[in-house]
């Protein structure tokens, strides 16, 4: 029942303050709430069962707060893994711990540029540990303002500005994600559903690239493992992701509003600047007694062909090692590191990542003079 219907003047504001009460629409609100609760619980349980039927299982989702949680664990002499999703999927922390004597901290961020994390460690005056840095040219040289750069900057910024509320939300979120399978924002959310609608775009539209669907799990240490459904030989999911990598790793055409020659000159300048910035950051770390090693992780198929064509080793990897004077491990230089199959062309399966890490350890020890 209405307590009292407020006048129009009061509804708008400025009515007598003592007499103001919000109207409550007369309806069986208790019953409505009970029925809504039952329906929503039923729908949520059904959605959860459907997600599990599709093969999804509960796993933590990667986000800025999880990275921040890992970043907080970095001690002055820690071994830290930075870079992109290849370092994230392909490094097994147990094998590294066995071989290197310390459990590394996983700070690689999928789909991101490594520089912001490297600069953050360089600016951390306490840090003088060891860095294992993945190198994927298209991500490594991503210009300022590009999604890989923005993603990394946003994440690093969060680690400095995280509020107590965000910290608590992260712990609660982890607990939920470890128990609920449908919590997969990339796939099983409204946005994921809308993204998959088969609606053709306008010819000539410069629309953002499609990102791969969910294909990996992650634990509290940010150790990623490829989902079995993707790892199966010839799986449909792996084939689908292969076709997503190609446009994603193909440089977009120069913007219409900048003359192509000016744009290309800017890109070249940007690459030189990135080399210089990375070198400066590494020098800072070295001055404090820290070490770094670059690693080129396995990739294969059409993606390898594309990467080699766009950024040949002679124009990216070789100058990087030359300028930074850092050791590097290029997987194809070593027979024991070659020959791994990446089902979706970019990452190793969970099983292969363990074997690869075991074989990588002696090379890391040698490069880092451990």
């Amino acid at each position: 029942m209405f307590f009292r219907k407020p006048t129009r003047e009061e509804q708008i504001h400025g009515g007598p303050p003592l007499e103001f009460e919000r109207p409550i629409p007369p309806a069986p609100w208790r019953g409505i709430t009970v029925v809504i609760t039952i329906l929503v619980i039923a729908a949520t349980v059904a959605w959860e069962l459907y997600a599990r039927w599709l093969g999804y299982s509960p796993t933590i989702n990667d986000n800025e707060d999880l990275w921040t949680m890992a970043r907080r664990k970095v001690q002055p002499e820690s071994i830290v893994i930075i870079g992109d999703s290849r370092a994230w999927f392909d490094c097994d922390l147990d094998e590294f711990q066995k071989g290197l004597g310390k459990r590394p901290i996983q700070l690689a961020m999928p789909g991101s540029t490594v520089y912001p994390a490297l600069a953050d460690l360089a600016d951390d005056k306490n840090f003088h540990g060891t860095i294992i840095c993945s190198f994927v040219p298209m991500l490594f040289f991503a210009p300022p303002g590009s999604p890989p750069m923005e993603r990394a900057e946003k994440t690093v910024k969060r680690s400095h500005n995280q509020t107590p509320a965000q910290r608590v939300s992260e712990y609660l979120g982890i607990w939920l994600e470890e128990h609920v399978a449908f919590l997969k924002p990339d796939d099983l959310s409204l946005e994921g559903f809308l993204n998959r609608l088969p609606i053709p775009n306008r010819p000539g539209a410069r629309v953002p690239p499609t990102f791969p669907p969910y294909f990996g799990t992650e634990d509290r240490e940010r150790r990623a493992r490829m989902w079995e459904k993707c790892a199966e030989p010839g799986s449909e999911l792996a084939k689908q992701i292969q076709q997503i990598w190609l446009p994603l790793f193909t440089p977009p055409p120069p913007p219409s509003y900048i003359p192509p020659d000016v744009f290309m000159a800017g890109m070249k300048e940007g690459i030189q600047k990135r080399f210089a910035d990375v070198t400066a950051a590494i020098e800072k770390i070295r001055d404090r007694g820290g070490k770094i090693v670059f690693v080129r992780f396995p990739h294969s198929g059409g993606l390898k062909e594309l990467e080699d064509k766009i950024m040949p080793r002679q124009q990216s990897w070789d100058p990087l090692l030359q300028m930074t004077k850092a050791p590097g491990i290029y997987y194809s230089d070593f027979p024991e590191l070659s020959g791994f199959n990446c089902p979706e062309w970019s990452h190793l399966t969970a099983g292969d990542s363990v074997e690869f890490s075991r074989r990588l350890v002696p090379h890391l020890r040698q490069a880092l003079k451990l």
Partner: protein
Amino acid sequence: MLFNSLTFVVFYVIVTTLYWSFRGWELRKNLLVVASYIFYGAWNPPFAALLFSTTAMDFWLGRKIGKSQTHSAKKRWLVASVCMNLSMLGFFKYGNFLLLNFQWLLARVGIIYQPPHLDILLPVGISFYTFHSLSYTLDIYRGVLQPTRSLRDFILAVSFFPQLVAGPIVRAGDFLPQLHHPPRLKTNQFFWGLALMTLGLFEKIVLADTLLAGPADRIFGYPGPLVALDSWAGVLAFAGQIFFDFAGYSITAIGAALTLGFHLKDNFRFPYAAIGFSDFWRRWHISLSTFLRDYLYIPLGGNQVRPFRMAINLVIVMFLGGLWHGAAWTFVVWGLLHGSYLVIERVIRIFFENKTWAGRPITRVVAGFATYGAVCIAWVFFRASDFTVASRMLTGMFGGHPNGDMILTTRELLQIGLVTAGVISMHWAMREESFETAVIRMPAWAITAIGSVMAFAIIFTQGTSNAFIYFQF
């Protein structure tokens, strides 16, 4: 703490359960004070001290105003309160802005001055709680409110967590009387409050963040020229985003307050069905527009002055309203645009108000859409990071970039079109009534169905805890 976060869900459940479990009213009020400071301190604990100091000062100044025997003494204490509040706001919010503009002015007369960059972190919601607090001393001075004897009650009036950081701007005079007697737990009120919270979170998480924020951000962040369709789509997306974001916050706040037995007034009343700009400001951010009306426009003379002076007053009020939103000239231009709209509307009224065709439905609809279009044009300045972006957007909207880029997907265009059509239709359908009266007409099964869809959509969307736009103000 964000309403759309897991932390808030846990916080709210604990606070509400404890609140209704406690018998003593004083104990409950103490609980709300502690909870509100935890809510605020969860962003940045030291700023809770700033909130407390502002509140304590205004409490003390309010008593001084109340006790003063002469008008001049009252005025002195009021000036002290206004200066204290505005200087706090000025330092934290406008410090760097003022320095940069001072540097620019000096450069115009040939003096090169490099000001130090003040590394000032803006306390979240400072514009809101400053106004909550300031309303207290202003109303005591105006003689419409007696100073409260309880510092704790005043602290609660300023910091009550549902409305603390993003409004509605609840005047102390509206809230303090509600602290005199303990509210009873009324079942329908409690569940209606929960229903409002669900609606508010649906607006924020599903409509604002998931359907509109992405395209709006991409369009306003794109560094190149855009064709008219994409430019307009970006602006319409932002118009919808800011409404659902802010109205969603307000409704959640009103709902949360209701579940605790408190009544907050409406902050929005279907603004995109406004016919004219006076009407728009009676429907959009009502708590701010009435604050500016009562404490600024009316003291400046309001409508009781000559037309030219009234026009100047309107522009001054909207100029300050724009500046209240942010320390940037783009916000000032947004405010000045609205000030100009209001002046133009008054002029049009003088000439056409008595014409028979002016009251015809078709005229009203056309006027309504013209209002919406003009409001959208003003939103360009509100959202653009600088005038280069604003100028590029406006040029694109009016066909100045026929060969510009198309960057939205067809799906996003459809999404924006459907949500925009939906919000405008809803606002027109309900423009003459309150939300509650619209709900009354609905059968219980329809309320249940809509409530269930909204609650499940919130879960299905798996929001990412994006901050509310108005937090930055």
